[in-house]
């Protein structure tokens, strides 16, 4: 922090306007819990009314601190501020800003309060408020994850825009003598009654000396100009012209390129290596050791890759079972009291319930995140400052990790967050940041860009956790009367938080997420139990986390039960669903698809599934045709309720993309271990969906939910069971394990 920044901070504590060293500062809004980081180095004549808005004589800058890995939150944040600020998006500069606790995520704690997210009762809200307050004080986390970008930003950023607008109006009033009530704002200017426009930039100097106007009521959504309407995403032209700078595209004077080889048995030791051949290869500058492996620093990425391949290694054993079959065998043995994670939900009495039994065992494999931009980070270490150019979702923790490695105070470690070429959870991890810092720390003064080869990216992914489910359903009189669901899995949260040096007390709720909170309130007998292990491969949050496997298990078992009961898959789900918002979602998807039962003509079938994750109910119907060349996925219809739509076009894109993601992995992806190493090394072996397999996808958004929700993850979970249920409808073959192509061919 600059010296004036420190003085300013101290001054704000006593709540008066500050003139320090000739630099004018706006008074920090009193109700903000944290200092406004923009004030630290604010030049003379510039104003920053809150952490998200800076106005100077040249331009208006909006800070959009959430990481953008493709979900569009960069544009959404800017639009939320601009909506209330009365400025157009082509009049502003938008920046990720620099990490600061002022940008802590307020929505992240909502799911930690122990209530399902569809419960918005006063008690649930009170506990959420309390938990949020405790976490804010104890560990305010700046993070993008858990589909919280939009809910975190929705009120806060509109408020930031409104506060800035009213302060600028106050400045205009002081300057013109016209009362504030007679002023209006439009397109980045305050308009006087005679039509004179005073641009915000011209008011910045005066506004900087005024106490920000707070407590501004937010506008009625009916008055919105930008939010809720189709937007042109701010990154769209750059992403369509190759001109957007991702982390991997960062270039700096004198920068070198690094490649690594780390023990492919995750967490295993480096016992020895011979780099003599690599040392002599073209372009190689230096070969250095890092945790668990070796890095080659060269003048070109490809040369670094080539040289890394030329190193001979002696790797230690994996700290988990070496063979995939042992992983499944281990999971099948933990359905017992010793491994009980939680008895997450009990309604009625599943054991006493009467009816014909339906049983199934389900499997969901390890899956790689494999975002198309391989992991990379550029780091420059000097003796008193470190700069990191990388996309990351937990920015300040990344800075802390680098501070620990380099010994440079965290205050002098600066992460320049970059646009991210996909994450799906991988950019919540720290290995690539840590490794880049370990390399750059041995090359002080030289910026070094570490790029993972795709093979290294696969080998060192922390995949989606492996899950096994066992279920018993009961049916009677044409109805489903009971579901007893048991889910066993590798604990994602313990594995992931463990790598951050954090422990997780109590159960890992992700192991039953999407099952315990499915709001089928009219199901009289229900039990959901989860079982936990930490003895398998290290795993991480993978888009939708627990809800991915769990919704597959739950909705496949439910479909089997409905079939046994002889009921209609959509109608019976609607009957069982006691949650109004979700009922409307199911009804709407039926309408959108013109649902007329699961059979859709000879060799054709339709399947439906419902998933509740991150507070969003989603229903998906998939239609398939069984052809001689295999199953063709022809159409999908998706309906979701996100409470409030920010950008209908982007939302549709996420619905389509999430459905493609869910379907693609369900049909042909898995990570399996042999000799302790992931057997899949590149996309040829973990393909996901390609265009020729992609169905036509129609989407509709509803806005009945009580709260606004994020949509990066929720479209994923119901797609896999909807497809499995459609295949059953078309062929009579019930598939209880992903990937489906182990059991049936696809086109």
């Amino acid at each position, binding site marked *: 922090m600059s010296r004036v920044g420190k003085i300013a901070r101290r001054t704000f504590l006593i709540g008066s306007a500050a003139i320090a060293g000739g630099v004018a500062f706006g008074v920090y809004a009193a109700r903000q819990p944290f200092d406004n980081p923009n004030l630290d180095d604010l030049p003379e004549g510039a104003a920053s009314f809150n952490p998200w808005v800076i106005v100077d004589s040249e331009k208006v800058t909006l800070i959009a601190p959430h990481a953008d*890995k*493709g*979900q*569009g939150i960069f544009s959404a944040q800017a639009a939320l501020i601009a909506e209330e600020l009365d400025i157009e998006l082509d009049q502003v500069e938008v920046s990720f800003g620099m990490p600061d606790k002022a940008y802590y995520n307020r929505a992240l704690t909502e799911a930690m309060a122990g209530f399902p997210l569809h419960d918005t009762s006063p008690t649930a809200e009170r506990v959420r408020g309390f938990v949020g307050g405790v976490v804010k004080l104890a560990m305010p986390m700046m993070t993008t994850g858990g589909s919280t970008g939009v809910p975190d930003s929705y009120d806060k950023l509109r408020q930031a825009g409104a506060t800035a607008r009213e302060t600028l109006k106050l400045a205009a009033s002081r300057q013109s003598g016209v009362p504030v009530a007679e002023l209006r704002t439009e397109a980045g200017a305050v308009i006087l009654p005679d039509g004179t426009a005073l641009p915000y930039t011209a008011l910045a100097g005066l506004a900087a000396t005024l106490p920000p106007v707070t407590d501004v009521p937010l506008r009625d959504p009916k008055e919105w100009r930008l939010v809720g309407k189709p937007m*042109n*995403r701010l*990154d*769209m*032209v*750059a*992403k*369509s*012209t*190759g*001109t957007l*700078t*991702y982390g*991997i*595209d960062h*270039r700096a004077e004198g920068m070198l*390129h690094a490649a690594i080889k780390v023990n492919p048995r995750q967490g295993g030791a480096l016992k020895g290596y011979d780099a003599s051949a690599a040392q002599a290869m073209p372009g190689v500058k230096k070969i250095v050791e890092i945790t668990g492996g070796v890095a080659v620093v060269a*003048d*070109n*990425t*490809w040369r670094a*890759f080539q040289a890394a391949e030329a190193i001979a290694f002696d790797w230690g054993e994996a700290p988990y079972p070496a063979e995939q079959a042992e992983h499944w065998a281990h999971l099948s043995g933990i359905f017992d009291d010793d491994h009980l994670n939680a008895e997450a939900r009990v309604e009625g009495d599943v054991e006493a319930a009467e009816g014909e039994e339906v049983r199934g065992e389900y499997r969901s494999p390890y899956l790689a995140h*494999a*975002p*198309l*931009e*391989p992991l990379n980070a550029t780091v420059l270490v000097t003796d008193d400052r470190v700069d990191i150019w990388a996309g990351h979702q937990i920015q300040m923790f990344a800075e802390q990790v680098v501070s620990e490695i380099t010994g440079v105070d965290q205050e002098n470690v600066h992460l320049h967050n970059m*646009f*991210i*070429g*996909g*994450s*799906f959870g991988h950019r919540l991890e720290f290995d690539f940041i840590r490794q880049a810092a370990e390399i750059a720390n041995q090359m002080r003064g030289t910026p070094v860009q570490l790029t993972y*080869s*795709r093979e290294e990216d696969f080998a060192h992914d922390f995949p989606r956790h492996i899950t096994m489910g066992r279920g018993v359903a009961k049916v009677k009189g044409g109805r489903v009367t009971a579901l007893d669901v048991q889910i066993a899995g590798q604990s994602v949260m313990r594995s992931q938080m463990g790598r951050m040096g954090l422990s997780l007390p109590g159960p890992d709720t992700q192991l039953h997420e999407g099952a315990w909170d499915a709001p089928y309130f009219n199901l009289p007998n229900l039990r959901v139990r989860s079982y936990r292990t930490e003895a398998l491969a290290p795993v991480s949050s993978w888009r939708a986390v627990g809800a991915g496997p769990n919704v597959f298990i739950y909705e496949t078992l439910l479909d089997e039960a409905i079939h046994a009961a002889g009921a209609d898959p959509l109608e019976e789900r609607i009957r069982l669903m006691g949650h109004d918002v979700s009922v409307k979602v199911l009804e709407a998807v039926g309408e959108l698809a013109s649902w007329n039962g699961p059979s859709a003509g000879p060799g054709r079938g339709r399947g439906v599934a419902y998933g509740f994750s991150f507070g969003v109910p989603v229903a998906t119907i998939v239609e398939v045709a069984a052809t001689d060349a295999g199953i063709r996925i022809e159409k999908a219809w998706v309906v979701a309720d996100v409470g409030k739509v920010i950008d209908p*076009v*982007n939302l549709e*894109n*996420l619905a*389509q*993309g*999430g459905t*493609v*993601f869910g379907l*693609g992995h369900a049909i042909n992806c898995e990570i399996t271990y042999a000799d302790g190493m992931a057997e899949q090394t*590149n*996309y*040829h072996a973990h393909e*996901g*969906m*390609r*265009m*020729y397999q*992609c169905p*036509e*996808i129609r989407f509709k958004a509803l806005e009945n939910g009580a709260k606004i929700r994020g949509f990066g993850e929720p479209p994923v979970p119901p797609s896999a069971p909807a497809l499995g249920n459609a295949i059953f409808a078309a062929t009579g073959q019930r598939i209880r394990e992903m990937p489906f192509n182990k059991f049936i061919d696809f086109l």
Partner: protein
Amino acid sequence: MRLTVNGTEHEVEVEPEMPLLWVLRDELNITGPKYGCGIAQCGACTVHVDGVAVRSCQLAIGDLAGGEVTTIEGLGQPESLHAVQQAWVEHQVAQCGYCQSGQIMQAASLLDFNPAPTDADIDAAMSGNLCRCGTYPRIRAAVKAAAQKLQGA
């Protein structure tokens, strides 16, 4: 070694086995073409050589044989978009966008050879370009729109 990229001649000193992709990205700082897989599985590195879409991660610079290279930067710029890029913006195709340089170069090449592709033609030509974000429905629509734009022009 000499090569022409987007109409400009460059001289680079590299071994002939170095793939074109890395000459572009790390020697010439032309970063529109992306590295995704390095083994012809994703298409993120697609550029045109003499007007034909190729995977630049697979083409050794020594085999370029005087071919003229066009990258996404040479296809169109933000202020002068190519019809395919225009269609991409109009359909708001990109999510993370990392695959889109390659998708657009592939689509532009397809439309050069086949100005009115059927749905099956589009699927066949574009299936080598992986999109992890799943923007395929929008890519299909944008390719069709671009075809119409180009035919009308």
